[in-house]
């Protein structure tokens, strides 16, 4: 079992020897804008690149997730999935041309999640260079409609409709190298829209202020008593609204997430928030709409699950310190479907969601070696128990 671990440090150098190919994949895929629901062009480039690397099967599933399959040697073993989401937070009108420096790549969406997609595309060539064959088929999937209102639709469809059992999965996120996610919290993502009617006419100078109404909603959420056990929290993540400094805003939106290790508790907090939103609506005589835009069930592997233990061993062999954190991404869909899976980070980065975010080049090679180590572990049966 340890044998494959010993090979990992030497892999880094071989992976780095095709640095140009890996960086080219990252740049070529990352420069194609891919906001959620508009990933078609990036999905096509994804398939074209896989075909360029002569991947055995390149296709899309019924939901248009682009997929490549590298055939395994066994023919009987269930496939192993490696996935990264194709969508990013940036719209098509943003200049997506990346800047490559000696050790940095800068550009919108690079950390979340273009670097991962580029790495995914490079895996076939890396396997070839390392002369690696797997018993299982390796399914390389770029999944669409993942973030925000996408609500993980792509991965949900892919897992739900895959015709065979899935042996295990590795989800890739751009940052940070060292993260090891093996559990996902229960989550409900909501928006509250405050709309002040303008029917009364423009001359009504003292109509309610939509932002202040939402401020009241926030204050009341803050007053909720949230339990320490099971752990649960509300993250106020986004506020938009208003027109200009001197005009009373008549619409505003608040975005928040309820996260917790217990689905029951998350739902209970959601009900409390629903009640308080209705209360504020009544008291301020304004229209408040609470919408659920996405939700996930809590799921986890235990820390002593062989996949988690193997991932820790791989990371330690590569002198990476594993940091565990929950992941509300593709991971949760695999785990909810009882498929052993983990999420790993590729490199270090900064300002992940700013247009001029950047990532470091050098750690990518170790990040890839780590993914290969985990794939080798799964192929050796750590998920089969």
């Amino acid at each position, binding site marked *: 079992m340890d044998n494959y671990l010993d090979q990992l440090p030497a892999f880094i150098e071989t992976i780095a020897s095709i640095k140009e190919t890996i960086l080219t994949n990252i740049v070529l895929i990352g420069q194609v804008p891919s906001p959620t629901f508009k990933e078609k062009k990036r999905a096509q480039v994804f398939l074209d690149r896989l075909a*360029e690397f002569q991947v055995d099967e390149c296709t899309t599933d019924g939901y248009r997730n682009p997929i490549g399959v590298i055939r395994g040697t066994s023919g009987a073993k269930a496939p192993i999935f490696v996935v990264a989401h194709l969508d990013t937070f940036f719209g098509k009108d943003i200049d997506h*041309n990346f800047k490559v*420096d000696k050790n940095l790549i800068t550009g919108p969406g690079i950390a979340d999640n273009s670097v991962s997609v580029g790495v995914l595309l490079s895996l076939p060539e890396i396997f070839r260079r390392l002369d690696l064959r797997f018993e299982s088929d390796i399914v390389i999937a770029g999944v669409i409609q993942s973030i925000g209102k996408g609500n993980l639709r792509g991965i949900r469809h892919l897992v739900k409709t895959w015709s065979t059992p899935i042996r295990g999965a590795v989800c890739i996120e751009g940052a940070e190298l060292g993260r090891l996610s093996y559990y996902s919290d229960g989550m409900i993502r909501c928006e509250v829209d405050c709309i002040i009617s303008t029917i009364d006419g423009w001359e009504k100078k003292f109509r309610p202020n939509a932002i202040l109404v939402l401020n009241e909603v926030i204050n009341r959420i803050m007053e909720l008593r949230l339990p320490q056990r099971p752990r649960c929290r509300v993250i106020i993540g986004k506020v938009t609204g208003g027109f200009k400094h001197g005009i009373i805003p008549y619409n505003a939106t608040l975005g928040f997430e309820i996260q917790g290790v217990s689905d029951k508790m998350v739902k209970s907090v959601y009900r409390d928030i629903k009640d308080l939103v209705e209360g504020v609506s009544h008291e301020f005589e304004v229209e408040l709409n609470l919408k659920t835009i996405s939700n996930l069930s809590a799921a986890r592997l235990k820390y002593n699950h062989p996949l988690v233990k193997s991932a820790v061993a791989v990371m330690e062999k590569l002198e990476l310190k594993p940091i565990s954190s929950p992941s509300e991404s593709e991971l949760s869909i695999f785990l909810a479907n009882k498929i052993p899976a983990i999420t790993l980070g590729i490199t270090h980065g900064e300002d992940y969601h700013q247009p001029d975010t950047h990532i470091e080049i050098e750690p990518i090679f170790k990040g890839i070696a780590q993914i290969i180590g985990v794939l080798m572990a799964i192929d050796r049966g750590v998920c089969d128990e």
Partner: protein
Amino acid sequence: MNNDWLMKNTFHYSEFMDISRLVEVKKQKNLSISLCLPTLNEEKTIAKEIIIMKSELMTLYPLLDEIVVIDSGSTDKTLEVAKAFGADVFEADQILPELEKFRGKGENLWKALYVTKGDIIVYLDADIKNIHHRFAYGLIGPLLMTENIKYSKAFYDRPIAIGKNKVRPTGGGRVTELVIRPLFSLFFPELTQIIQPLSGEYAGFRELFEKIPFPIGYGIETSMILDICEKWGLDVIGQVDLERRVHRNQDTKALGKMSFVILKTFLDRIKKLEFIDLKKETFNEMIQYNLVKNEFKPDIFNVDGLERPPIIEIPEYREKFNIRP
């Protein structure tokens, strides 16, 4: 004017997407190909150009035999970055050092002929923000896949980058439409079929490049077309649609300077061809004005109109490439 040439000699890069076929033909014809990137403070884009070309056209498909950067005195990290990504980097001043030193794009391209080894040379500007390997294989395609074409030139849609992160979908090509196209229409109407005569991306056989003079600055694109056309005819020229090219937007004053150089080069050429007879020598200074503290101050840009002779006339070149007199 008939537009036969436009129909016959215009290509789309996608016609040459089968790169393995290009590699095969290159081998059959026993040719070597060099990519030359002339630079001056291009640290933001140079690495990307090198990695993509190296990965796609050297590692995956051995279409290019070398990538050479010729720099005319960058003060940023251009040289360091280019070396880090494995390009052969030369400072223009260090090439043929016994010759008088000049600065300019044309100078870099001319000196590239001395340091590169290829039978075909691909010149790409180093400031292409959306660089893709089609920029190289698209230009190489007609040279390998046709018998008559010896020089291929790019044309594109040219969106320009505005502000920090926004792209405007149309624009660019102002000097082409306001200066060069009217001139071609007046003197060489057949050349108006070249959609973007000033594009900075072109490729050709060494045997052509070595036999024509190179203006040291902006005039190089204009003179190259006129000289090639005069010596070998329009049929050896092809043009390739490379679709989209995102480049830095230049202000009107900078374009004014560029236009001045192009006009000067053009006048020199038509004078040599005895198309016109100027009764007076033209001046070498482009004069623009800046308003400084409510006062108009002249901003003078000097152009000597210097040219390098055909490099085949340089003894060191003849010796290096074993060319007998």
